[in-house]
């Protein structure tokens, strides 16, 4: 079995000392969908730009379909397709002209790329709009065209950098279907996203990236299993109650408790038993929850527990100044976490986060 992408210890710093990639390593199995999941600024886009030969890394190596991205950059460019975070299509051209241009620049013969353009316009439901300038396109149509442009040369390896950021739900699910069709035809896909739902739906394997390194790797199911069999979600009257509850739980050995605004989340293996215990505990302390649910863990929970940051579509926890310290404690206790030196790495990250970002 071959790996379509092999990234080893990639390092990249930008002017002004930001270390975008800090020893990033992962491998993408041929024919699979691999998700790079992480918050803004985690280094996902930098990784994609290195793998698509747009950037050269400061350190480390990367191979795409067996070719080195630095020494065989041109060969790599001939094998890949890229749809970027911003729809990189020409505003002034029509959809058809955009695709024809990309076909020509991919060095396809003219009849071949004209034919391919027709196919793609139909496949992405743009045939009616094909001869209109892009100025008249909606955001979703532009993004579809951008993905179509990445597919002009039938690449064996497709890179999608946050393909659905800013799209409405209908366009998003249409794009997901298109990606699934490609994969069923044998295309390997590397996808970056901030959306759990997207990674969960599309990816066979996920690397959670934060501050330029992989902090967790596995199938969506396995990552979720790390959280414990179930997640206990307790809704409380206010932030003070939530903080109190968190401390209470931790003092009784449930160190995984984390406060999210007015709620407390806790991964537990012994769901019903834990529920009884905790309810008793809360009752003794005079705390009355208004919600008490046991649910399946989501990738959101995993993401939160690993990065200490809420996901893109979770606005709640951003305002919580205590989050960082809770999370630090919590991650130290979590035995099932992958990678041995994670505790140390994590403190470094936390220190940096304290100095820089909120």
């Amino acid at each position, binding site marked *: *079995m*071959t*790996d379509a992408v092999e990234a080893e210890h990639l390092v990249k710093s930008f002017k002004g000392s930001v270390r975008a990639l800090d020893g990033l*390593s*992962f*491998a*993408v*199995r*041929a*024919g*699979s969908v691999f998700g790079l999941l992480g918050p803004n600024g985690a280094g996902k886009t930098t990784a994609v*730009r290195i793998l*698509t*030969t*747009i950037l050269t890394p400061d350190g480390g190596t990367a191979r795409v*379909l*067996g070719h080195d991205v630095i020494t065989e950059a041109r*060969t790599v*460019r*001939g*094998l*890949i397709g*890229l749809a*970027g*975070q*911003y*729809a*990189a*299509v*020409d*505003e*002034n*051209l029509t959809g058809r*002209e955009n695709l024809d*241009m*990309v076909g*020509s*620049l*991919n*060095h*396809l*013969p003219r009849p*071949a790329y004209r034919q391919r353009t027709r196919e793609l316009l139909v496949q992405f439901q743009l045939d009616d709009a094909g001869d209109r*300038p892009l100025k008249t396109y909606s955001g979703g149509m532009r993004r579809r065209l951008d993905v179509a442009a990445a597919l002009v*040369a*039938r690449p*064996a390896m497709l890179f999608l950098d946050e393909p659905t950021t800013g799209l409405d739900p209908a366009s998003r699910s249409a794009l997901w279907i298109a990606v699934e069709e490609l*994969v069923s035809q*044998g*295309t*390997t896909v590397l996808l970056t996203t901030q959306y759990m739902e997207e990674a969960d739906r599309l990816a*066979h*394997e996920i*690397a959670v990236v934060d501050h330029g390194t*992989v902090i967790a*790797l*596995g*199938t969506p*199911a*396995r990552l979720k299993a790390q959280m414990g069999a179930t997640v206990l979600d307790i809704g409380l009257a206010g932030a003070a109650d939530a903080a109190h509850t968190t401390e209470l739980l931790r003092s009784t050995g449930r160190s995984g408790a984390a406060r999210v605004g007015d709620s407390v989340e806790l991964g537990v293996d012994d769901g019903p038993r834990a529920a009884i215990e905790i309810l008793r505990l809360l009752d003794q302390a005079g705390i009355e929850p208004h919600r008490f649910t046991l649910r399946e863990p989501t990738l959101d929970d995993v993401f939160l527990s690993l990065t200490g940051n809420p996901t893109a579509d979770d606005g709640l926890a951003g305002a919580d100044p205590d989050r960082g310290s809770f999370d630090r404690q919590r991650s130290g206790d979590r035995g099932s976490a992958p990678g041995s030196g994670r505790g140390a790495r994590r403190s470094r990250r936390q220190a940096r986060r304290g100095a820089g970002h909120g």
Partner: protein
Amino acid sequence: MTAEAPGAVTTPAPSTPGPRHTTATDLGWLIRDAWTVTKRNLIGYTRIPEAMFFSSVQPIMFVLLFRYVFAGAIHTPGFNYVDFLMPGIFVQSVAFGAVGTSIGLAEDLQKGIIERFRALPMARSAVLAGRTTADLVRNVFVMLLMLGVGFLVGYRVHTGIAQFLGGALLVLAFAYCLSWGFAVIGMAAPNSETAQVMSFPVLFPFTFASSAFVPVQTMPGWLQGFAVNQPVSKVVNAARDLMSGHVPGVSSATATWEAVVWTAGMLAVFAPLAVWKYRSRI
């Protein structure tokens, strides 16, 4: 990190490169890719007719301004002022037109199109070659328009047709080489607005402290030193000699030769610099 995770999809890599490249020489691909990018830019220009219209209004206003407002105050021994003026206007118009190169490239960078180009197996310098070539085509139209306006306000050719065409070619060649200079600015600017404000401070001293609109002899001594020995004056003098009639003081051959050397020199410096900037810009 390994990929030993379960949930396997184990299709082997479809690693055949497909029907792409390596059938023509690199130069062949450069020309073809540059032409593709040129076409894309030209189509872009035709899709924004407003921009085309207003970018022609400004040079026409310059003609009217100098022809009717300043003409009476400017003495040009040996020439009607309009004959003196028009070659200067040609050079000024195409030089201003070359600013479009920096704005266009900065915009492409900003919008992410260049990012897409970088990930394609196309010739790398084709993006710049395509932009400068499209701007050359646009400058041919600017030149024809200015010629028409010139004839309307009394400009007449006092040399032969071959000389006149030679002068026009020289002006366009100068514009093309200048485009590469502005390409460097476009690659260095953070966005298109900045590209524009970065371009004009470079352009203004060269076009106005030159022989384009007034005889340099009327300038103060310290300025004459600059005005006489800079490329715009060299090209204006040669174009004037070829298109309007012999300029006293320097032989026609010397004037032409100097202008050609300056023009070629600009290309030799700016083209590699712009390509280097394109390659290194993140």
